[in-house]
Structures are given as C-alpha cells and as structure tokens.
C-alpha cells in the first residue's frame, strides 16, 4: 500500500471557510429550486392543456386573500433575514414568527376554505372529483400547499434556533436558506394564482 493511501483522508482536506461553505450551500439550494421549476412547470402545462381558455368559477375573494397573505409573508421573511444581517434580533425573531403565522393562515385559506375540509357552508364548491377542473386544481394547490407546510416548519425550526442564539450577523446561512426557499414558494404562487383564478372564461361545475 502506498504512503499516500495510508494517510487518513481528513489530513489532506483543509476545512472550507464558512464563506466558502455558504457559497456551495447557496448554489446547491438554487439548483434544487431550479429543478422544482420542472414540477410546477409541468403542472402549469397540464392546466393550459386541459383547461384551455376556461377555468372553474372559483371565489375571487379567496384567491386574492391567499395571494395577499403569501406576498405579505414574503415581505416579513425578507425583513427577518435583513434583521439578522444587522444583528437586529428583535426584528429577526418577530418577523420570522409573523411569516410562520401568515404561512399557516395561507394554508387555512387554501385547505380550510378553498378545499373546505371542514364542510363550511358557501365554500369549496369545486370537488376533487369534478373532472379535469377538480383534478388540476387540487393537484396544483396540493403540491404548493405541501411546499408551504414544509416552509412553515423550516421557518419555525430557524426561529427556534435563532431564539437560542444560533445565528449571528456574519453567520446565518440557515436563515438565508429558509428565506430563499420561502420566497421561492411565493414565486410559484405568483404564477399559479393567475392560472387558477384569473385566466380563462369561468365555467360553472
């Protein structure tokens, strides 16, 4: 066996700096998000192929409310990330908590009202079994809601770590990663909202 092979591997590897690791993590996260474009892109393509210039007659108020909540949550997430960058811990922790609450509220609007899982009168007229309209609507909002749910969990984990003082002005990749993911979820909804609620002639199911 050669002398090189006998050396423990770790001795040859110089540990990358925090900046270098952050740079790699950032690139990895963006590549992951890029791959997600194909998932939501395929769902959008299915929507335009199957619905064409029509759409289910959904409640416009609910769609606008969900969109407003998610956009506002993105603002608070940006505020939280900026906060830790300036060592403004109060803004950081409060903003993250507000983002998680708004994300949960978005889920309540989509799953609670639009899907109407609790059977509230006057909501959720479109059912999963309503042919191509139900199938496309539920699969698109369902996939997106799963992303929102995982984002809320991620934000709460980051908030809890932040509360324990795990992040600092210079070292907060965890916050940045959660923020980029959350904004991505928002960007996806920016394209889903017109596709589901605004484009095409409304069709009564």
């Amino acid at each position, binding site marked *: 066996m050669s002398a090189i092979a006998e050396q423990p591997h770790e001795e040859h590897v110089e540990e990358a700096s925090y900046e270098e690791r952050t740079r790699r993590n*950032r690139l990895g996260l963006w590549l992951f998000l890029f791959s997600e474009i194909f998932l939501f892109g395929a769902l959008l393509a299915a929507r335009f192929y199957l619905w064409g210039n029509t759409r289910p007659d959904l409640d416009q108020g609910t769609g606008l409310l969900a969109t407003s909540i998610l956009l506002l949550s993105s603002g608070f997430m940006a505020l939280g990330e900026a906060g830790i960058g300036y060592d403004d811990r109060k803004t950081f922790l409060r903003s993250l908590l507000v983002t998680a609450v708004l994300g949960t509220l978005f889920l309540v609007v989509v799953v609670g009202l639009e899907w109407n899982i609790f059977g509230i009168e006057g909501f959720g007229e479109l059912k999963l079994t309503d042919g191509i309209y139900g199938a496309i609507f539920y699969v698109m909002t369902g996939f997106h809601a799963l992303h929102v749910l995982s984002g809320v969990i991620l934000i709460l984990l980051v908030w809890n770590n932040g509360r324990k003082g795990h992040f600092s002005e210079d070292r907060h990749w965890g916050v940045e990663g959660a923020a980029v993911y959350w*904004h991505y979820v928002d960007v996806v909804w920016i394209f889903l909202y017109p596709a589901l609620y605004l484009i095409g002639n409304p069709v009564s199911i």
Partner: protein
Amino acid sequence: MKDKKATYRQILIVIIVLAVLTAIEFVVALSLDNATTPLYIIALVEAGLVVQFFMHIYRLWRGEEHS
C-alpha cells in the same frame, strides 16, 4: 453595505409594488376577455422583483452583502 433603515425601506417599497401589481392583475383579468399574456407579463415582473430583492440572486456570483 446599506444602512439598516434603507434596507427595511426597500423591503417595504417592494411589498407595496407587489401589492399594486396584484391589484392591477385582478383588474386586468376582470376587464379583458383573453388576459393570458398581460397577466403573465405582470407575474414575470412580480417574480423578478422577488428574485432580485428578496431572494438576492446576485449573491450567487457576487458573494455576501446586504442590500
């Protein structure tokens, strides 16, 4: 590096612009028969704002900085 207040102000401005664009989107959808193209142009502008100002895509090639 921008000062804290300027960064917070920028976030507020982006949120206001996003809210205005969403309102325009809603009005356009109500007033046009085939609004697919204008709606997706507005959506692209909204997404561009979020990617640039909230997701800081430029950090991929410029590294750490606050703005």
